[in-house]
């Protein structure tokens, strides 16, 4: 499966981005890594150009919070992204916060899978479970 990934907004956490790329590749995904400092529109545009089934956004230090509010409205402008699996992971809030508050908030923003301070491999296991559950014929 094709995955578009990258670090959203004004965020240069390149090490996490690289680890994500390696892990996804190791699990057999075809990865389109947009790198750091990526805007939301670029993620969606990349999904259109590549035909990716999964969009995996990473973020640290709560940078995603502001950008994610635009996810639903922006995604609705694209006519071919209805089946795109939307996933976000990293540290999704400024300072400390707990997943019970954060996960529903991001799901409300339009993400199918939200991994706040979850280990990378655990997050990718969650993705595989989600795919099995939602994409099996």
């Amino acid at each position: 499966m094709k995955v578009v990934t990258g670090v959203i907004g004004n965020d240069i956490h390149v090490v996490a981005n690289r680890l994500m790329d390696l892990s996804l590749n190791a699990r057999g995904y075809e990865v389109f890594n947009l790198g750091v400092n990526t805007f939301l529109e670029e993620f969606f545009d990349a999904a259109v150009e590549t035909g990716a089934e999964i969009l995996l956004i990473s973020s640290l230090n709560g940078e995603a919070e502001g950008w994610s509010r635009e996810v639903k409205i922006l995604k609705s402008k694209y006519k071919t992204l209805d089946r795109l699996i939307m996933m976000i992971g990293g540290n999704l809030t400024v300072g400390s916060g707990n997943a019970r508050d954060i996960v529903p908030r991001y799901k409300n923003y339009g993400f199918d899978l939200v991994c706040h301070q979850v280990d990378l491999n655990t997050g990718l296991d969650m993705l595989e479970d989600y795919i099995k559950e939602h994409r099996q014929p």
Partner: protein
Amino acid sequence: MSTSNEKLLIDIGSTYFKVSTNASIEQHFRDFNKQILDDLIHKCGDTVHRFEASDIHICSSANGGLSTLIIGLTHSYSLKYASNIAFNSGINIIQSIVFQNIEDYSIPSDVIDVVIIVGGIDSNGGLFDQRLSDYIAKLDYSNVVYVGNSQDAAAIASQVERLVVLPNIIDDRLHIVEQHLKEYLTNLYQQDIEGKEDIKHLYQITGNQIYPTPYVVNKSLPLIHSSFSVTEPFILLDIGGATTDVHYSKDLVSDNIVTEQGHDRIVFKKLGVYKSRQSLIFTAENNEFAYELLMHLKVTENIYTEYSEKATRILMQLAIFLVLCKMSHYRPTYVTLNLLAINSIVFTGGITKVLEAEDIEDVVAFFYRKILNSDHKPVTVLDTNYDIWTLGAREHATCQ
């Protein structure tokens, strides 16, 4: 005959032509009752005949460039990449269309020289449908080229007549591949030059390919520091009789595209003070600040109907203002430059023969004050002897 390494450089503009040897540079007003070659031989025959055809290098901007309409899938990739390649090939973009909303776009009334279709990586297909050929059927165009994903090429070729299919400009890592489309567009530009304005007759005296002037001038930019005191980042404005070319440091654009060259260019096809005079005046009349500029220059709009030295000077000053507007956020066209970051503005072309440095600085200061609300004052550099063109032409001739 000339010494073995001496080159004769010729630039055919819409109003003047220039002839440069190692010893001197001449400029002549064109006689529009004569073919270019006859005019050139009449005025500079002795010089031309001193050189072998292989040592004569000609460029021209007399045709004013080509126009393109681009149909792509997304702004961030296909449209951005194709636009970038088109700019670098000296092509003017008249419209960019996002395919998913193609039915919402109007049909341009002008003839389009080349339609570019692009979108998707090669492993992604089925991205275009009947709406594409329906839209293209309504266009009045001369050429159409497909540079999108390989899977859709055959289907589109069966629906669009005379479609040229080239390799995808987006590679499998979503990176830009410039080479094939750039070569195609540059060749079209050259064919256009050869077919128009009697330029083709010039092949009787040269054994080299005739290139577009903006392409040649762009070659000089990395070398500009050898002749001028210019601080990066800078823009270079070549304001002539028919067109205005803008060359700029890539640092001034935040488009996230990594290309080999450090300088890009844009050609404004209908912005000049002689052949494109009416178009320039029309643009000025539609700019609410142009009236204020005229007041600042202590003239009225009656200047538009005057044909005098003073009117030419004012039109030149207007052209500077309008082109800066086109490159700023105020009137965004193809690219928006960070004009507050520039340290130098270099002027070349006919404008340097008409305006003094203080005339130019006055307009530049007016632009920054009115449009960008800033007292920023980039250093004005005037290339009064066409040294920049000579530099680029010599570099290009050496490479050839």
